[in-house]
């Protein structure tokens, strides 16, 4: 973790004095303009480091390449004017959320990837975040809108960083200061900047040849998730100020574009192709939902996964597990048994499914079926941690 100097912290407190010098920045080279912006970047790096250290960073090169392709398509020739490289990271989190760091790295939650229905909808969200980046909204809010912005609220954390720097626990202090960035990420930008990013995001979407109406659908999905009530609305990307207003604005803008002479509808990419591209994120989202006991959502994600990856036994197996964990005593075992059977049909040597087939049969008193399944499990996974226990089951059938 880079050291954040006390001087930089003092600079941040002095920032309102510089507000008048900030101008709208678009299509220009993007590098930190001064020490204060550099400090903001470092805080953002701290936040990103936290994600990695906490094991929430999803390392999936294929997925990152896919996102990179979308980013390049959205930016088009603007890429030639940027000094920084746009990068993507995928974060294990079921919230439908994405955010951009001030140096052009876009973080996309697995929940967002799984929640969108096609590439254009995802592109609408990425376009929105790219617009925040191109217009340097995080920095602009820090210096120009301190009273209302989340960054302003987070300045206290920088004071903590200063104290801790003196006491020699800089890393921890930076970890806390990373909370400043979290604050911005989760609370959203000001209304003005959100509208600005919506408008530019829509323009990027259209210029890239995607159907603009998909941005509306993307917002509707975010809104549905908000209404789902599983998490605090404050934490949702969709809870940036006035989601309803933003949705209305988008609808108005799309209708206006459609009325223009010579309007040509953009592409609505195939949803199956999209599901295949983000299948890994769908599986992770389902697994997290399963751990957190959101059984309906987990089942829905696994169904989506098996549709996208019918050859992978994991989707079927996890569907069976969802059913088992939701109702371990049954009484209906048929659904989970079918799912485990589908898993072994997809891959004949998929050991975990045999174990569960054996367990379900044992629970129902089907001795021969249980014996067969347990024996198959033991032959396929002789090193598994529970082989001794499974042998005991066999001995006592």
């Amino acid at each position: 973790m880079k050291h954040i100097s006390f001087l930089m912290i003092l600079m941040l407190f002095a920032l309102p004095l510089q507000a008048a010098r900030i101008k709208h920045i678009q299509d220009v080279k993007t590098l930190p303009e001064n020490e204060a912006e550099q400090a903001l970047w470092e805080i953002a790096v701290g936040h990103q480091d936290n994600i990695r250290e906490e094991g929430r960073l999803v390392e999936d090169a294929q997925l990152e390449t896919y996102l990179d392709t979308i980013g390049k398509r959205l930016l088009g020739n603007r890429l030639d004017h940027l000094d920084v490289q746009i990068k993507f990271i995928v974060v294990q989190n079921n919230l439908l959320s994405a955010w951009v760091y001030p140096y052009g790295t876009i973080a996309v939650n697995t929940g967002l990837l799984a929640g969108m229905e096609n590439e254009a909808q995802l592109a609408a969200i990425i376009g929105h975040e790219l617009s925040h980046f191109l217009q340097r909204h995080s920095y602009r809010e820090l210096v120009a809108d301190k009273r209302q912005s989340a960054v302003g609220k987070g300045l206290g954390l920088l004071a903590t960083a200063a104290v801790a720097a003196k006491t020699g626990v800089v890393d921890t202090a930076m970890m806390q200061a990373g909370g400043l960035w979290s604050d911005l990420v989760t609370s959203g930008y000001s209304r003005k900047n959100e509208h600005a990013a919506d408008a530019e995001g829509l323009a990027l979407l259209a210029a890239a040849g995607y159907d603009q109406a998909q941005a509306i659908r993307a917002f509707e999905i975010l809104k549905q998730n908000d209404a789902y009530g599983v998490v605090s609305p404050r934490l949702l990307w969709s809870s940036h100020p006035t989601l309803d207003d933003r949705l209305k604005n988008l609808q108005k803008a799309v209708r206006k574009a459609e009325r223009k002479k010579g309007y040509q509808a953009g592409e609505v990419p195939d949803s199956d192709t999209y599901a295949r591209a983000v299948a890994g994120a769908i599986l992770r989202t389902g697994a997290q939902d399963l751990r957190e006991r959101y059984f309906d959502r987990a089942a829905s994600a696994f169904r989506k996964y098996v549709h996208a990856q019918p050859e992978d036994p994991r989707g079927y197996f996890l569907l069976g597990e969802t059913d088992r964990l939701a109702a371990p005593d049954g009484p209906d075992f048929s659904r989970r048994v079918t799912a485990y059977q589908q898993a072994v049909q997809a891959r004949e040597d998929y050991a975990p499914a045999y174990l569960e087939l054996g367990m379900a049969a044992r629970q129902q008193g089907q001795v021969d079926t249980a014996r067969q399944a347990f024996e198959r499990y033991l032959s396929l996974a002789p090193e598994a941690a529970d082989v001794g226990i499974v042998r005991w089951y066999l001995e006592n059938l």
Partner: protein
Amino acid sequence: MPKLMTMALVLLSSTILPGVHTVHGADDSPYLIEKKKFRKSVRTVALAPLDVPDMFTLSAQMHQHLEAEATKALNKTRLKGVGIPVYQEIRTLFVQRVGGLRLDELDQKHRTAVLDHSKREMRLRHPVDAFAEMSLRAVSAAFADDRAEWDGVKRKVKSSGDGFSLFGGKNYQGSIAAASFQLAIYDRSDKLLYLQRGGIDVMQERRADKLVLREDNYLNDPKRLRKAVQMAFKPL
């Protein structure tokens, strides 16, 4: 300045025990579903053996004492229970079947297998409504003026050296790691229905401007252990 000291203390404290749990406050209801619904649906429970994470040093005698107190406390409630020995017998059998457990990380898979299979076996053999799981937990306790307060208890924090008092007098406050006894009750599909803790003792002491782990055995006072168990069971 005292406020800044508080922030620094929180940071210091959090560096020592990153796995500390947040406090389940005394004002929080222990019931995760309506109490009425809980009382209607949970009449029989199976009591699982006490789980003691590696960070704690608990003598065999005190382990036994805690389990005996828990059994006593359960018998005083309206719940009918399947005793710890029943559950323990299955766990012991399964531990033997995986070739025994060691305390190293490599054994984590064996531990998980034993815990998972023994719970499934208990579920299969005993038609109880719920499973009561007891454990020792490290929690974060509010700490001010060398006194910590959490999970229904107040304890003095041992201090030596000047440290914070140099800057903030006795007005500093923050959080400190503390040990609690936890009772969690799950339904048959593992849904958490009840969670209550009773505080035992602080796990840290102040040395000048640092909080360090205590070296003495703070889990050796039968009265404090009994009180902690009683607090966890009391709302039942």
